């Protein structure tokens, strides 16, 4: 396997991991919105 191929695989994986990181952050954000919704619904 060439170094270029390995580097490309690394870049793809890094992007993928960053994507997962964003997804987790988005989940956290959604969770907060959900908790706000619950608060509103309690009235």
């Amino acid at each position: 396997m060439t170094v270029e191929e390995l580097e490309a695989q690394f870049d793809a994986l890094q992007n993928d991991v960053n994507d997962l990181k964003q997804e987790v952050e988005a989940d956290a954000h959604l969770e907060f919105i959900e908790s706000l919704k619950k608060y509103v619904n309690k009235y």
Partner: protein
Amino acid sequence: MAENINQNAKTNTDPDVNTTNTKEERVEQEATFETYQKETNEINFKETKSSIKSELAKLDGFLKNLKFRRFKEENNLPKNIQSEEDITDPEMKSKFESYKLEMDDPEVQTQYANARTQLIDITTDRNNKINELYGNKMAKDEAEKVGKVQELLNKVDAEINECRGKEGQEEKLKRLEALKEKIGNKEEKTGLFATLHKIAESQMAVRKMAIQDLAETMEARVNGGDAFVKADEKIKNSIGQLDENGRIVTNDMSEISDDLEKMDQEEQQQEEPKEEQQASQQGKNNGAPVMEGGVPADLKPNYLMMLGFNPGNVLNTKSSMAMLENYVSDKITDAQRVEMLNDPETRGIILEAMDKANKSINPINRIKFNKTRANLVKLAKGEMVRKAVETIGDAHPENLEESFENAKNEYASRRADLESRLNVQSLSDEDRANLENQLAELDEKYQSVVNVEEFRTHAAGLERFRDRAADKISGMFNKNERLPLPKKEDAKVEKNEPQNVEPEKEVNEYQPVDGSQEFFIGGLSGAVNSREEVAEKEAEAIENGQKVAEVKKDEKNKDEKKGPEIE
């Protein structure tokens, strides 16, 4: 895979769309979350409640029967008296009604212990199911990525072994070793593995929050007590309570059933407005026209006017943000806000606006949204304050100290290593540049650790916020208070705290630029300054949003160039 990511990045050029995900992805994520929420609610409420009911009914039946048997024995009742209903003599009947079982009756103790074990099992089972539900998806994603990174590392190692010692392979070897360093080490949590480790930690935090939230909702549904805790206490109280003759009271079971029935009714009442809302969203609400986002057009005009929402207009991001800002502004009183929330239709509009705002956040809107969010939180009751207290607890310096020290030591050692490698005179320009880049990257990573130190200072300020918010919210929502606010003595640290508290830094979050004592934490934030002062500063910051970001970026670059100092 990289192509897909690039494609996603290209579709995010719309400034009014979330900067990290496409609309479709957001919708999908929300749908997934909704499903989790729904499934978890099912587990929480229906299954648990029905199991508790069944256990209580069994215990109730047993105690009633035991009471009759003991009464019959002690009073030598004839054999033909087979149940309570067979007692016809008024005097005997009255005696039976006031009869209490002995507290130390072995049969009572055994049955109570059995019932309690069952109730604990039901609750444990519920918690396990929630963990399973939230844990599986996230753990699977993370494990998959860790596996792929490890796979790549193995390939790189194999190539390194192949090249080592061979002539003409020096350049390839250098590149492979640089790549290996970027990939890092799973055990030592370096490189890409370190990022994955951080993701796992975030996921744990999200899971914890989600479970905690559901538990709080459950508490709220039974007006201040978890169904299990409530039932358990009732049982303890009813069996443990002695009358003046030293006998235990056993006829409280009906109260528990009543409570559970009440829960049923409340749940039903809460479900009904939802159904109505859904019907209106589908255009079935007596033929009423439906706005974009499923908002019915025949809402109460006075509330709509107060919120600045025109039924003739489309509810878009801009109008949603404006409405939310109006909702939390001084134009609307606290009493009116409560009235609005009590009105299902207006509440529906507010929720729609929150959804809309959340789905379409660009950096400027995020600033506005954070402001709105901060104000919404300020309006929250005891449960939100309690959440703030718990968040503060999680973020407390003591919990961060160890990881902070580890990270700092690791940084110092890696920096020293890189510097010693840079001091080798025979380095080629390319190698030097490469090492310098690594050093810059390392310094940049260290900045995130430094933030922990800021956060440490910040935690002290948050405790002050908790105290002030508790007082303010307590006054605001006194009539509807359900859950206890934190006690004063929990926040005694105020006097010894530093006066100038740095705001916590958060990616894409608005930070006060003038050192005002406003601070943010995770999903919660609050202001120490007066509302007018903060609003003025925020308005200025919103207007100059981009400039602020640029200035901060410049400042950050400047700091990075200087390089952090090791204590």
